[in-house]
């Protein structure tokens, strides 16, 4: 009897702990939405746009989590590859969907090379993948800046005067992506009661979701799950652990490159030296807000996370303005929340693991069990 009560309490605590972050966000949104005075249809429109913008990037995080490598902060590498593709097609003035596809084709080999390098390095830092990939992001950012600031215009020819800095080489800070702006979102124009639905992008995202569902059922997906749960057992069974881990990072990096291209076609302008940095942080924060953890993330986590996270972004500036007459607060809140949520999720995850271990020990208590 006592045991059953303990078990029930443990399960309830566990549910609350697992879902603490989404619950906090739902609570905050419920308070902030009425204060912000936004109309329902406006919010729905915003959420649809942002879902199209962000979901692909967030989805690219799933595969390394399956392989037990945690949150892939190294997705920034893929984002950089995507941006290099976008700079080139903008210079070549290839517009519309062909432009996007070409950008993706250019980005693919770059992302594969970067992902392979990242995977090999992470294999040497087992158990510390997240911090290693985070720092790796800074390192590759240096290389990216070198290429973009000096390489473009000097080594790689850039013709368009709109792109090059006035000194003759290096790419300008802001790039107008007018040529491909919304070209995927508006590919199939659909409108429902005045709300535009970016169906083209949703289709791509849908295909990606199907890919992930299918991927989990492949031999490679099964191997990744095995490696993610216990590397030593997987190795003893003859699964090539290191190679599997590298493949998971390569896939994630390539998908992140595509995700960044979709993200930027939705925004329509590219911040050459900053866009990729934010991509990683916000995608990871969104996934965690959706209730994912370092070791477990599902498709519903992705969509719930993107909606809750962006709802907060849209609502908080206005709520801030009406509450204390300061819209800046929302902007501040946005950054504060994304870093804060990552920190809280990581701490909660470790805490929960410690609790689970303590719970597993209950059978050792000679007197009680």
């Amino acid at each position, binding site marked *: 009897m006592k045991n059953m009560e303990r078990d029930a309490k443990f399960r309830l605590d566990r549910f609350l702990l697992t879902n603490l972050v989404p619950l906090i966000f739902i609570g905050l949104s419920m308070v902030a939405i009425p204060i912000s005075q936004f109309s329902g249809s406006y919010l729905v429109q915003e959420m649809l746009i942002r879902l199209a913008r962000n979901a692909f990037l967030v989805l690219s995080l799933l595969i390394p989590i399956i392989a037990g490598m945690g949150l892939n902060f190294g997705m920034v590498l893929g984002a950089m590859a995507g941006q290099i593709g976008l700079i080139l097609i903008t210079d070549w003035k290839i517009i519309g969907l062909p432009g996007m596809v070409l950008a993706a084709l250019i980005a693919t080999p770059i992302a594969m090379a970067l992902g392979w390098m990242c995977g090999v390095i992470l294999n040497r830092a087992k158990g510390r993948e997240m911090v290693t990939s985070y720092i790796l992001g800074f390192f590759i950012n240096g290389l990216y800046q070198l290429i973009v600031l000096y390489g473009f215009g000097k080594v790689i020819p850039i013709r368009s005067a709109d792109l090059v800095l006035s000194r003759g080489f290096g790419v300008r800070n802001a790039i107008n992506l007018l040529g491909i702006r919304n070209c995927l979102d508006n590919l199939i124009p659909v409108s429902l009661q005045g709300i535009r639905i970016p169906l083209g992008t949703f289709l791509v995202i849908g295909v990606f979701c199907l890919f992930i569902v*299918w991927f989990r*059922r*492949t*031999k*490679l997906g*099964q*191997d990744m*799950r*095995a490696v993610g*749960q*216990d590397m*030593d*057992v*997987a190795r*003893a*069974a*003859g*699964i090539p652990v290191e190679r599997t881990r590298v493949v998971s990072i390569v896939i994630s990096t390539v998908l992140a490159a595509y995700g960044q291209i979709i993200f930027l076609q939705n925004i329509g302008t590219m911040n050459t030296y900053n866009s990729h940095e934010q991509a990683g942080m916000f995608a990871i924060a969104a996934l965690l807000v959706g209730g994912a953890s370092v070791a477990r993330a599902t498709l519903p986590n992705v969509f719930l996370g993107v909606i809750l996270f962006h709802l907060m972004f849209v609502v908080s500036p206005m709520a801030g303005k009406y509450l204390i007459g300061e819209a800046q607060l929302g902007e501040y809140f946005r950054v504060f929340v994304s870093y804060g949520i990552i920190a809280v999720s990581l701490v909660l995850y470790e805490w929960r693991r410690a609790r689970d271990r*303590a719970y597993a*020990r209950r059978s*050792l*208590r*000679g*007197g009680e069990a």
Partner: protein
Amino acid sequence: MAESLKSVIIGDRGILTPSHPSYTEVKGMTMEPLLRIEGVGKAYFGNRVLKDVSFSLARGEILGLVGENGAGKSTLMNILFGMPVIRETGGFEGKIYLDGEEIAFSNPFEALDAGIGMVHQEFSLIPGFSAAENIVLNRESMRNNLLVEVFGDRLRTLDRGDIFLRGRSAIEKLGVSIDADMLVSEMPVGHKQFTEIAREIEKAGTKLLVLDEPTAVLTESEAAILLESMRRLAAEGISIIFISHRLQEVIDACDRFIVLRDGEVVKESGTEQADVREIATAMVGRKMGVEEAREEEGRAFGEAVLTAEQLWVDMPGETVRDVSFSVRRGEIFGIGGLAGQGKLGIANGIMGLFPAGGTVLFEGKPITLDDPRSALRAGIAFVSEDRRGVGLLLEEPIKLNIAFTALQMQDRFLKKSLGGFLTWRDEAAIDELAREYIESLAIKCVDADQRAQELSGGNQQKICLAKAFAVRPKLLFVSEPTRGIDVGAKKLVLDTIRRHNREYGTTIIMTSSELEELRSICDRVAVIQEGRVAGILPPTADRAEFGMLFLGASKVSEKEVAS
């Protein structure tokens, strides 16, 4: 011929076994044994762990392999499986034949391909996978699809239906009922063990199965089912090497058994006439080189100074489940048992180094478990079995090592200045202390400033003891004091412990894997088996008596020393 004999044996668990001629001889004459090991030996860096081991194993035969920890069982299995460690340390002597062909695997995968399966002590299962998924791990049934042509074989899709069926039929072969869809993380321990065995037999062409203490984690009824499964497998022609410390099981389940001691086969016989006591005696035996002379003196002890009630300790690999004992003032109390049974966990738990629970009273006052300071403040010191990890500050000089605990916990060897605002180490007092112990324990070193890591194992152990003595403990835990040090130094270390007990009246609780060592200096010896006290014996008790407790063959009620 062999098959029919076999079924007789299986049917009646040895009762109707023909006592002669031994049926293995019959088999030997009629067919080549599945496995033949001839004169196998192995030495690691001049340290001989296996000498001239020879035995053979017929098809469908179950062979029990028993021996103490360190008797050479693991080395023998490492050789059989071609573990890289064997080749890296210079290979092995002798020959191994499987199916009449000489084998020398260069890695375990070759052994698996040749049809040798191994079930380890610790589970190697993926927790988030179902039983069936684990059973076919990396041998999944798959279907082709278009993408395979582009990206290769790893993008084949899994055939979940077939995986389930294969898993289920492997489980059925064992004769147990486990849901093939159940996740391993939700299984009771026994089911995990069966899942592992099912994985080995699901592999095509498994001829020989090595089970390394498969029953250690099982309840009695689960163990009985497992033994039944083993006999079913043997009836299908799979040979089994069964490693176990539970002798009754060896007798019940095996056709024959061999006993390894100090790397040699000391006993080999059929199980039909075997007797637990006899095997236990053969196993424990007499160790070479340890003097056994005990000074018999009228030893009188005070009241109980430390009492543990229902102590549990979550120390990985040395789990203590439910231990109660009490130690009297001035006594040397020994804790023995085989490795992994939990004897090391007791001291570590009371000292707060691993999560623990239960009640521990020291001089009538409770010790707060999970807090090392509580035990240290109460006047308990600990010489850890992990000398280089927990015991010593390897980079620091000898003198600081000796003074360290006293300095940290008792604020000794410190001097204050500026009205107590600043505290300094009292180097002169520390030097004096170090000189004193270097002399009294005969620590061989250049001087007290030498770094601890430069000393030999025996001298490092003496520094650990000096460090513990320096806090003038009322009670001292010493774990594995002679592990990894040479024979001469062993005696010196034991003498040091004994002398400290006699001179200062310090109560000592010594944990050791070496039975002879415990018997030579302890006043009472508790034997820990499967995380519980199997019994407490006087050191003068018969060696076989200890052997029985080590193996959990009998639950002897506590026998106190008559005094």
